[in-house]
């Protein structure tokens, strides 16, 4: 693993996309990993089952924060169904660098939170 492989992750970590909150979001969820302190909150604006806007906030390690930035960048225009059927590998392969299993929890926190936000919305 040479440093440059981290480029994409680092870019998102240092220049987070879609960082912030959405006033009057249709779906919001926040979750953390207590043992390591990572926290991610995601706000979603929906339009007819399609993600119109998404923003996230949170703190934590580069992997968790970059992953959620990368995620939010790719889901606009996708349907709730698309997101709910996303596989862990889809997320992992979007990071531009092979991720060691020890970091899976970090890398998958964002997609977990997004799914929970959408599920909570669908259930209500």
């Amino acid at each position: 693993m040479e440093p440059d492989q981290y480029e994409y992750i680092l870019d998102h970590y240092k220049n987070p996309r879609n960082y912030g909150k959405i006033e009057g979001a249709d779906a919001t969820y926040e979750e953390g990993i207590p043992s390591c302190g990572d926290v991610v909150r995601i706000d979603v604006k929906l339009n007819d089952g399609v993600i119109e806007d998404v923003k996230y906030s949170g703190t934590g390690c580069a992997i968790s924060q970059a992953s959620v930035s990368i995620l939010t960048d790719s889901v606009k225009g996708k349907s709730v169904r698309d997101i709910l059927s996303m596989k862990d590998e889809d997320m992992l392969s979007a990071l531009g660098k092979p991720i060691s299993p020890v970091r899976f929890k970090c890398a998958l926190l964002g997609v977990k939170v997004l799914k929970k936000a959408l599920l909570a919305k669908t259930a209500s």
Partner: protein
Amino acid sequence: MERAAQNKTVFDPLKLREDFPILRRRVHGKPLVYLDNAATTQKPNAVIDALKNYYETHNANIHRGVHTLSYESTLMYEEAHEKAARLIGAPDWRSIVFTRNATESINLVAYAWGLRNLKKNDEVLITLMEHHSNIVPWQMLRDRIGIRLNYVRVGRGGELDLDGLRGLITERTRLVSVVHASNVLGTINPVKLIADAAHKAGALVLVDAAQSVPHLPVDVIDIGCDFLAASGHKMMGPTGTGFLYGKPELLESMDPFLYGGDMIEKVTMERSTWNELPWKFEAGTPDIGGAIALGAAVDYITALGPENVAAYEDELLGHALGRLSEHEWIKIYGHGGGERVGVISFNVEGVHPHDVAGVLDEEGIAVRSGHHCAQPLMADLGMDYAVRMSFYLYNTKEEIDLAVEAIKKAKRIFG
């Protein structure tokens, strides 16, 4: 720790490493460098073989058997108590109760002594340096009984505020429960002095020795403590092992903790009476194999000499502190001088501890990052999360150098 290595045999870490099969393992294609010893330690062949030998040759339930396997198991199990007793200078092996881990040892005291003997407004004094296992059981008693729980503060250099401690011991203090060596800062606390102060006020003293017994000579008589809690798995014993030492008269006077088979003398429908020590506190089938293998771990330490282990680990610690402090962007917590065990918590400026540990893992190096089960201390030090490296007798200076290189790499990537 200026202890001299006065042992007959020369302490040769490279030779010792051959006793630990896991150290031949590779992680991400690199040789394993295991620096997470404060969490749990690796096991030498002597311990693994003791387990294997027990299950292949002797395994049976103890105590009540009139058959050869049971007889052998009973003797071996009792002998494991004797070995643990000798290691910590306890004159009577019956004052050793085997538990699953240090946490259970402390809970045993909280339930069997605390829940039965403490009253509202009685005080328990702990320190801000405690592991969760020496905090949460007392919070439980605070919530159930209304005792008061007080904390001794910790200075930036990692030292307990001893004046503060003396001031917090009152005539209401019933127990002072203090960690011997901090699993975050490495600080070795003056437990003998603390025990003196507590006893003068009529309080009992519990020493959480999870991080001291594996690394230092420890003597319960010299310390003068009433209870001492230890982890077997942090001193090369199998997981699932730990023990509690208690002064025999105190253990005698206490109620049991867990109730059931083997801890009784006689059971009728109406009432039961208790077996003698230590069985009174060891209900049900104990971890016989684990305890016997822990005995093998004690033999291993004893043969090396705890004072030699301490001296060697102090060398490693000195080397690591030296290498880490070459970089002003590495912030080390609490190593302000005084005696320490081989534990260093630090942060890399601008890099999340998780990312540091992640890069080290890619290099085959195991360190921990997180709150180290000491959130009140972490909050007080204003860090919440940190990277921790912790040493044991099989580590080498070369391993520390590899870790420092990997930390530099993490800084290059993320800093």
